[in-house]
């Protein structure tokens, strides 16, 4: 790896980092806007999440007297984790320097780290809602994580790599093949995406009913910049998950590292894919109701089963 190449790689990486952190709230805004349209409402527009972040950053933070350093530091850790995750995933181009640093298993670990801190912070404050949310979050996530790993393993088996660039490389740049195993893994991934991002039917990100909350219950005590960082991190997480989905199942058209000429086309294609995925998510959420919390294990069990089926099909058919 010579010097100019390294600079180029870092430039590419920085472009992706900046783009992701700036565009993530817009994806959330897009999903909300699509939902509004599907419900015959006019909606708040694509820029609403930015306005909310701006408002929150201008407020004074209120912190409970008995909050420890854990509570204060958690928003920064969660935000950093999500940003790091977004850096690892090949979004704009493959083979970025950061993506060498961690494979898919480490990626799952990064998400888990953020979750652990947010659950600890929720309990740190000592309110009943915090502990209730943390408890439910752990129930959902410990069922979602194995399913996510199985999805990754299926993709890894096909591409013989646990590195995301390797997987994308294998799927995007080889001859176009239909993988039945990936179809099962894709279904499982959608379920995991819904559960991990606190979406309907597992959780409801827009609810005000504190007793039904999972993710929101954990962050009830946060305000101002802390809340802004957590909201932003949630947007980043959704962006990261959809990007993982694109990388695993629709990687076609991603730019090669260092290929500036291919970048505009890659960006346009990426925006198209994100818009499509966001609209599909909005549709899915609009037509479903939230399930009882004790149905979530069945739901996530289905995801795990589908992912295992994908893996089995790969072994049986070699595809």
């Amino acid at each position, binding site marked *: 790896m010579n010097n100019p190449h390294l600079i180029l790689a870092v430039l590419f990486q920085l472009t992706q980092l900046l783009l992701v952190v700036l565009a993530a709230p817009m994806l959330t805004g897009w999903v909300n806007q699509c939902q509004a349209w599907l419900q*015959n409402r006019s909606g708040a527009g694509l820029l609403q999440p930015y306005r909310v972040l701006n408002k929150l950053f201008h407020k004074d933070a209120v912190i409970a007297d008995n909050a420890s350093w854990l509570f204060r530091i958690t928003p920064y850790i969660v935000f950093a984790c999500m940003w790091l995750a977004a850096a690892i995933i090949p979004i704009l181009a493959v083979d970025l320097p950061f993506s060498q640093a961690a494979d898919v298993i480490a990626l799952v670990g990064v998400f888990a780290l953020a979750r652990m801190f947010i659950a600890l912070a929720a309990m740190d404050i000592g309110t009943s809602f915090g502990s209730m949310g943390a408890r439910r979050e752990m129930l959902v996530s410990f069922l979602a994580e194995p399913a996510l790993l199985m999805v990754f393993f299926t993709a890894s088996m096909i591409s013989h790599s646990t590195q995301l660039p390797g997987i994308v490389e294998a799927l995007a740049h080889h001859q176009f093949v239909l993988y039945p195993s990936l179809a099962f893994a894709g279904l499982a991934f959608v379920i995991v995406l819904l559960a991990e991002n606190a979406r309907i039917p597992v959780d409801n990100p827009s609810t005000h009913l504190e007793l039904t909350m999972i993710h929101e219950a954990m962050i009830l005590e946060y305000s101002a910049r802390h809340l802004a960082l957590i909201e932003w991190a949630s947007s980043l997480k959704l962006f990261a998950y959809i990007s993982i989905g694109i990388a695993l199942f629709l990687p076609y058209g991603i730019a090669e590292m260092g290929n500036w000429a291919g970048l505009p086309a890659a960006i346009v294609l990426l925006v198209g894919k994100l818009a499509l995925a966001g609209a599909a998510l909005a549709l899915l959420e609009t037509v479903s109701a939230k*399930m009882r919390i004790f149905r979530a294990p069945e739901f996530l069990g289905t995801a795990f089963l589908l992912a295992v089926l994908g893996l089995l099909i790969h072994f049986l058919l070699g595809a």
Partner: protein
Amino acid sequence: MPITHPGLQLQRLAGAIPVWHGRIIEADLLPVCESVRDGGGRLVALWGSDERVFGAGFSLHVVLVNEAGLICLTLPLSAVQPDYPDISAIFPAASRMQRAAYDLLGIRARDACDQRKWLRHAAWSEGAYPLRKDFDHPHFGSSLRSPPPHQGEEAIDRSPAENGTQTHDDYPFVQVEGQGVHEIPVGPVHAGIIEPGHFRFSVIGERVLRLEERLGYVHKGIEKLFEINSLYDGCKLAGRVSGDSTVAYAWAYAMAAESIANVTPPDIALWMRALFLERERISNHLGDLGYLGNDVAFSFGFAQFWILKEQLLRNNAELFGHRYLMDAIIPGGVRAGIDESGKQTLLAECEMLEREVRLLRSVYEEHAGVQDRFIGTGSVAPELAARLGLCGLAGRASSQAWDMRVQCASAPYGMLDVQMATHRNGDVAARVIVRFDEIFESLRLQREIMANLLGGDDLAYPVSQLPANGFGIGMVEGWRGEVMVAIHTYAEGNPDRVHPHDPSWQNWPVLEHAIIGNIVPDFPLINKSFNLSYSGHDL
């Protein structure tokens, strides 16, 4: 005569609904209550009044209802030691009413098993009873008829101790003990913008072992305020006891006043009142059905039902001058009529609502996820409902076939042949079904009312002065259940004691039972399916 008991003299009061009133002696109270209960009757309301200005003592008033009508019993109490036998063993719903009567007036139910305070928080001290005529308060002073002075700095600057208030509100909740049991306190400040109420859950994991409510956070002193209001201002105030039932309260108040003054409003006014009441019912049911969708994260339903509700409210504003029909009803009649083009607007609206609600009903009923959340959730068995006196819409969803538009049909309901909607299951799904059925019935009634509404000259007859020593009761089937207003006059002129009663008094305690065995995240849905009033209860 709805009930006979040796020595009990009941007199039929004038007015739109069958009400019998009589004085009772203490020894007869429990036997009479028992015989009403055994005959399938229920407790409607319980309140007290301070009649020491006549040299008498206090009075306890108990309103019961059976198939023949309302029975109002008045029990005179001593001025020195005002107490009376506890009736909560016969009617469990009486318990909180008795506790509230003690907090407000200092009349105690002897040997009641629950003697904790209920409406009194920290705003006034123990031993002060706001509804006594000699209650000393900066707003009221000695002359009750003069309007309250503006709360000046003087009142604000006084420390809580000097004001007679406490800084702490120690309320002994019932503790559930055992391994793994913990408490979740919720409210009175909630994550959403709703009325304040405190809910104490004792849970194991997500399963609710016990729920205890603590209400009274929106106590506004409405009953005290009635004492200084004129007859017509009192009607406005009655319309603000619970904003979602403004028509029902205003009508019940007007009905009670008309009963005392012996005035029958013009026919057209009665038809208009029924029209208003049905519109209030439709708009609240539409809103609730939307909220029930929202509570299971089915926002599509929420948005659609609220579009319909908004259309109805806009028509209200355009035709009758107020979105929620506040102050449309006045003693003696109504303030707003309707013309031919207005009728056309409403008929078109009826048609649109009928079509849209039918469509949305099929969406709800065919949605597996929604039905999975509704069916079997928050179930109240008919036997329990009967024992606890569950009333109104929630009662009808648990086989309690009571509807004042059917049983005590005041004009014009006697001519409308209302079809009562009932269900057996008593779960959230049943309460949804009853709401849907009632919307369609109300749409039918609205059409029928419009066919009967002929142009008249007068919208209202004047009700000037109420006679002295008068007593009247008005009762209307609001959308939530039976809304009752009782008016006492001592001197000639204006009401001296007004007691508004919301059906939520009966239904709040039943909610504590409905949640048992369900999981914590289902509580908001169950709560919404009852949709009880805080303001109407806390007064």
